[in-house]
């Protein structure tokens, strides 16, 4: 069966049943015709009606279809698995469409899950068989060793690799005079060779047992090119850099706002009181922002108060002070301290246990840090006062 990019045309049609999505096919009543030329091609009729699917391989002319796709087998497979750009194939004439093209571009992706070729699994035997080809004579100067492979479990077996005079030979069975013998499960052997598990870790965790010359086991790895799964393309290397720049910050409170932090240290809330309008400002400021007069009187508020506006954050934003993502949800309600004038509520944290219960108007109390230094972290959060 002819394959393109490791996939046959029939594979794509044969998997249509399992890739069919009923929920995407609601209201679709269409017959798709496929006329695929070239080796492995043919004609297919795909009927979608009443959320049902019928796939048939047919002979003869295609007639009475909603849309007919006319292309060659390689392009068809390439476009289906994303190796060939559909737009380019269409504009260059490699794909011809007769009928409602919207059915192919818009409706088809809703009806079918994307086709993904089944992964070809490497076996221990594939890896052993390719050793001679992967041997690097330039690395084996002066090396004379016999490596035994005792692979247990599914797909296992016993093999011996003989490295001498810059040549490599692989024989079945374990030689009696191995320099080193590696014993492990065949699956572990495959994973090691595919780079899925780390050699040192596999050895220290006991997945790999080494008998004989440990040093030889280590050198042997360098004698062979890395094993690659046949037909698999090497993943393209892409560069992505992570960095955590930080901006140092320093804020001097001055004597008036400093009163706020002095208060936190003493488990108290201080506000300045405007001599003109009587407003209690927190944190304390030198000037009343409304009346533009100097405030020299300081009053104590709270420490208990009322929740006024509930703000619960579900978006996982980084904490600007550490760069770490905060745990969500977290509460940032507004609180009005007892004795504060109107509109002087302020936002602060909420005890996580109260997130579900907090409602506007509820009484709240502050929870203080054990050790207080005159900083915003002295006040941990508020919680429901009950």
């Amino acid at each position: 069966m002819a394959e393109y990019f490791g996939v046959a045309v029939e594979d794509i049609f044969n998997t249509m049943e399992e890739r069919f999505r009923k929920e995407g096919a609601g209201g679709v009543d269409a017959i798709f015709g496929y006329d695929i030329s070239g080796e492995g091609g043919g004609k297919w009729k795909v009927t979608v009606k009443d959320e049902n699917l019928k796939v048939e391989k047919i002979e003869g002319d295609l007639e009475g279809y909603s849309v007919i796709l006319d292309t060659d087998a390689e392009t068809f497979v390439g476009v289906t698995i994303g190796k060939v750009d559909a737009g380019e194939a269409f504009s260059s004439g490699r794909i011809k469409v007769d009928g409602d093209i919207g059915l192919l571009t818009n409706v088809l992706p809703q009806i079918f899950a994307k086709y993904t070729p089944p992964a070809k699994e490497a076996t221990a035997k594939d890896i052993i068989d390719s050793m001679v080809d992967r041997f690097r004579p330039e690395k084996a100067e002066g090396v004379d060793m016999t490596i035994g492979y005792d692979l247990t479990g599914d797909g296992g077996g016993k093999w011996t690799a003989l490295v001498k005079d810059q040549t490599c030979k692989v024989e079945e069975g374990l030689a009696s005079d191995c320099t080193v013998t590696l014993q492990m499960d065949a699956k572990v052997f495959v994973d090691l060779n595919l780079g899925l598990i780390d050699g040192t870790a596999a050895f220290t965790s006991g997945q790999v047992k080494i008998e004989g010359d440990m040093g030889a086991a280590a050198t042997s790895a360098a004698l062979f090119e890395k094993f690659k799964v046949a037909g698999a393309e090497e993943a393209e290397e892409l560069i992505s850099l992570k960095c955590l720049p930080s901006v140092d910050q320093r804020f001097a409170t001055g004597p008036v706002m400093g009163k706020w932090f002095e208060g936190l240290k003493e488990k108290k809330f201080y506000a300045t009181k405007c001599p003109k309008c009587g407003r209690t400002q927190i944190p304390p400021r030198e000037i009343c922002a409304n009346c533009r007069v100097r405030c020299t009187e300081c009053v104590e508020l709270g420490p208990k108060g009322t929740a006024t506006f509930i703000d619960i954050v579900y978006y996982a934003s980084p904490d600007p002070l550490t760069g770490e993502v905060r745990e969500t949800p977290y509460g940032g309600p507004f609180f009005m301290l007892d004795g504060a004038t109107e509109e002087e509520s302020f936002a602060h944290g909420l005890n996580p246990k109260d997130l579900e219960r907090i409602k506007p108007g509820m009484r709240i109390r502050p929870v203080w840090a054990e050790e207080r230094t005159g900083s915003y972290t002295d006040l941990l959060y508020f919680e429901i006062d009950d």
Partner: protein
Amino acid sequence: MAIHKEDTKHCFVQEGRMALPNQYFAGRVGSKFIIALRDEKKILGVKCTKCNKVFIPPREYCERCMSKLDENWVELSNEGAITNFTVVRYNDKHLPKKAPYILALIKLDGADTPFPHIVEGIDLKNVEIGMKVKAVFADKTTNTIMDLDHFEPV
């Protein structure tokens, strides 16, 4: 209770550090450019065959005619000429070199656009437009444009 602005008893200093987690993805085109610098010590550009222009750093689309360029790779010379320059005279932790250093726009032979990089090995007073420079690659990779460490006079 009264407070006076002259009373410095309750002055506090709040220290903070704003951390800004960043992830930069070089993209397919950018990755290929950096990998060529890193593994082959080659400077790659992309050519727009329609406009007949060679761009560096490489980009996916031509800025003039919007043609897709990511298949038209060209290898540029490791030498070129300074088309403009400035001297960076302050130090900051995000800067790649210790001040003062020369930050120049360099048009490599084979390219139609200049690109910025550092010029070393010449006194700040003697750098001039038109000067021929060549690339010096870094010994250790950082997977960044700094795998090309700097340029120096030919």
